[in-house]
């Protein structure tokens, strides 16, 4: 089968969904003529026209707010924020409105929208263009939260997002768009189910998005040293598939969470706490959290790299955890 990029897989998911569901529209900055800042929607304007692929002004708050209103009245909008860092401008619409409307209104209506964006380091975007802010959304009841790491997952998770009746925050990673892989369009991929990317018996690495690839590289190298690491890709942070995780940890007895977001009060805190809660009796060591440093992201590529976990540090931390 031909290789597909993560970017293309996303585009394919959007395209196929739009073909079969006329209520889907895309709105955001540069999604049309420009084809998206990271090229995800390139060519879609030509197929779907400017009524369904809508370039917007630089007005993040109304981009999300209009998506909310459209979703309430019968459309299924995909609102794109160019960088997740800009969600800071639309938190009211995301958190106080989109996430709460079904509940506040007593279940009368859902808000079937997808907020697509991308985050993370890797392009020296500095402090305002490199953040990983998924913990905020994970902390917000009412939001689904998908963070695909592979070509096939990007495709299926986005397609599934476009069938849910509640808001989905769909976070891509700027470092993954050029990732290549074989797209398996027929793979069964239930929403909210983690995937064991690699089996192993010595310890369990739990991660998602770009960090999965670093974990896999680390696991591969470690395997040559006789260390057997299990790698779990959560795929979605809401729903969160703790069953797969605790099953694994109860076998390995050692767990390490790897995330790119800042350590303190980040996603790794929740995962660590949950693992302890669900597999306490099996834990030989405390759950280890290898996350981004508690700092803004600096622009220097060297410093940027040091701000988030890398393969070397994953390996050395696994070894510490295993007392090797």
């Amino acid at each position, binding site marked *: 089968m031909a290789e597909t990029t993560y970017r293309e897989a996303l585009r394919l998911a959007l395209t196929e969904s739009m073909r079969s569901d006329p209520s889907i529209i895309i709105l955001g900055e540069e999604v049309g003529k420009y084809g998206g800042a990271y090229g995800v929607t390139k060519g879609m304007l030509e197929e779907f026209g400017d009524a369904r692929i809508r370039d917007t002004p630089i007005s993040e708050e109304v981009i999300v*707010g209009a998506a*909310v*209103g459209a979703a309430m*009245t019968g459309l299924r909008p995909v609102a794109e924020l160019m960088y997740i860092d800009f969600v800071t401008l639309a938190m009211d619409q995301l958190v106080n409105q989109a996430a709460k409307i079904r*509940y*506040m*209104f007593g*279940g009368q209506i859902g808000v079937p929208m997808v907020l697509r964006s991308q985050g993370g380091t890797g392009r020296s975007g500095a402090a305002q263009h490199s953040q990983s802010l998924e913990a905020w959304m994970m902390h917000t009841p009412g939001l689904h939260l998908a963070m695909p790491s592979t070509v096939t997952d990007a495709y299926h998770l986005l397609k599934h997002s476009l069938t849910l009746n*509640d808001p989905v925050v769909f976070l891509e990673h700027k470092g993954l768009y050029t990732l290549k892989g074989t797209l398996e369009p027929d793979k069964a991929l239930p929403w909210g189910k983690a995937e064991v990317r690699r089996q192993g018996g010595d310890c369990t690495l739990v991660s998602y998005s770009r960090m999965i690839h670093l974990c896999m590289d680390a696991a591969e190298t470690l395997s040559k040293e006789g260390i057997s690491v299990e790698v779990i890709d959560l795929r979605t942070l809401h729903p969160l598939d703790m069953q797969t995780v605790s099953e694994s940890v109860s076998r390995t007895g050692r767990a390490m969470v790897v995330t790119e977001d800042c350590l303190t009060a980040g996603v790794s805190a929740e995962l660590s706490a949950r693992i302890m*809660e669900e597999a306490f009796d099996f834990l030989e060591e405390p759950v280890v959290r290898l996350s981004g440093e508690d700092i803004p992201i600096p622009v220097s590529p060297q410093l940027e790299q040091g701000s988030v976990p890398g393969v070397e540090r994953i390996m050395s931390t696994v070894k510490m955890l295993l007392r090797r």
Partner: protein
Amino acid sequence: MIDHPEKQQALRFFRQLVRVRTFEERVSELFVQGGTAGSMLHLSIGEEAGAVGVMGAMREGDGFTTHHRGHGIFLARGADPKRMMAEIAGKSSGYCRGKGGSMHIADMGLGHLGANAIVGGGISHVVGAGLTYQMKHNGNAAIAFFGDGAMQQGILYESMNLSALWKLPVMFVCINNEYGMGTRLDRASATLEFERRAETFGLRAAEVDGTDVFEVYNRSRNMLEDVRKGQPAFLKVNSYRFHGHARMDKSPYRDQDEEREGRKKDAIAFLRQHIVEEGWYQESECDELVEEVKQEMDEALKYAQQSSNPSPEEIYDDVFDPETDNPVSVDFRIRQALHYSQG
């Protein structure tokens, strides 16, 4: 003999105005009895004509959002005062089953896309609703109601611009009651030319006397014709907040004379006088109507009082589509962690 159409309209408006005011008076009673859910209760007394006039010009299928002071608007739309009152009391027979309350009443059936407790929070939703209507070519319009205070929220201008840029069937209605909480308009806004502001974002704009329900109605109707054709509009309805910001606020920051004058701007009194002068109703007939409405609202009050509270386990309902997701309770998690049986 067929009634003069103006008479019919006048009487319809009069009843609606009285209904709004009386409803708010009952809400106020409910509050005093400790029967409302919470103290954040904002009465629209003094602003009735804005609600009734604009609503009169709206059509079935139109959508709207309101600010926190939206009881009157929804009632004028045709809401059931019982279910409104019940919601304000936090009861399960309320529009939102006791989850939303006064500041989050909504009803998709009547096109009420929701009251909002964030100043400016509901404005952008009508942009999205307008987009839906435009794409469905259904001729509907989407109307955002908000206060003068929201005129300084950035999202209003983003919303205006996008509506005009995309030629959406959207109308922005500012219910100007001269105050945002304790701050008089001129202490919050560098200029008072709100219509000019709207025009520079591509909207048609006007202001109307919010004590004259006919003026509000006629202007809205005219505007809405163009709105439906894709020319978004802005309407400022000038009125006065008769009472405090919230039910407990005695407005010590307001000048006594100003308040006295302000309360004279009473759309109901004006219309009643007009109706009597025109000979459409006698005073006694007006009294009868008022009495009827009182009974209606007394019943609403009673209904709310007699309705039951939602049951505790309902807190987990409707966070998500029940088909796909349901939150687990904190207690469940703890029991799981400690290996306790669920119970």
